[in-house]
């Protein structure tokens, strides 16, 4: 349940550390909040410092503080219900940065990810994640 102003950790290696939600895309429910697997627009609030000396191709694609990007919600503190009545709850909110073509910006994921992503079409994220719960 992430809406405007919600902060979350960014768990890929794109360079961002903390992101803040600015807009929730395509959610038609009344509350208009993002759940696991929803796409949101975020502002990068905290990022890993990019050393100015190195100009490698991979590092040039890194994200900086203040960037506005899209992200996919990957963990929420709000419990998610599964069809048989099970609930999953994580201790924090987390997201993975994505571009407008739904491709990941980073290429590694460092953390647990919810299994709801597979059903919502984010199979690539599930395959990269070290653990899917």
């Amino acid at each position, binding site marked *: 349940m992430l809406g405007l102003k919600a902060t979350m950790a960014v768990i890929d290696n794109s360079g961002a550390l903390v992101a803040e939600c600015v807009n929730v895309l395509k959610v038609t429910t009344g509350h208009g909040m993002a759940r696991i697997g929803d796409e949101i627009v975020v502002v990068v609030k905290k990022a890993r410092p990019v050393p100015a000396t190195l100009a490698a191709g991979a590092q040039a694609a890194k994200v900086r503080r203040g960037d506005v990007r899209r992200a996919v919600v990957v963990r929420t503190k709000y419990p998610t219900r599964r069809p048989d009545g099970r609930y999953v709850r994580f201790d*924090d909110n987390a997201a993975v940065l994505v571009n407008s073509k739904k491709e990941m910006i980073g290429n590694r994921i460092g953390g647990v990810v919810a299994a709801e992503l597979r059903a919502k079409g984010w199979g690539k994220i599930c395959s990269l994640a070290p653990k899917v719960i």
Partner: protein
Amino acid sequence: MNRLTAPLRQLRTFSSSSASRSAPTPSAYPYSPVARLPPTTPSSPKLPTSLLRTLNLHLASPNQSPNARFLPLFSRRSPDRLLPGSILTVQSYSSPPTPQNPTPGLQSFSGVLIAIRRRHAGVDTSFRLRNVLGRTGVELSFKVLSPLVKDIKIVQRAETSSLGGKGKDKKERKAPALRAERRAKLYFVRDQPNRLTGVTGAVKKSREQEELAQKKLRR
């Protein structure tokens, strides 16, 4: 004769007479000695007035489901009930088993038991396991009677350090390996990251012990 007292007197006589007790099927009708009633069918359970309770009675026969053997672990007064703080491993199917695919992929989750929720005479029993994976805490709640839950294994039971036996049989008070928490719901643990650690260690240990036991059996 008072109209009100007559039937009462007859009731009393009927209750004390041996004839009514020895009579096979028709139940005595207190207002006429000649009348005969059809035999009553034995105890169909009295349906409650509430719709949801009726539905629960009809839809859920918990003792017939294959997971009913786990219910005593989560009941309130069973002698081998689990205490909060115990470490469990649950094996669950990722999708419901169908006739075409009776055993879909299994997923196992281990964690500390932090809450048991019991409703509707045990039919809606669920429990919550908490574990720290990577650096994030994950809580997963399972419905005991769900067909998606395949197996619940007890990795380590939490025990109280109470004395067993009475009088001469009293054992010495020993500190349990895993001490039961003094609370039914352990939600406070979310704010204490140093507490209830060692789940992965306990799970690994029990798995190693199982493997050793299996190796011995094979020999």
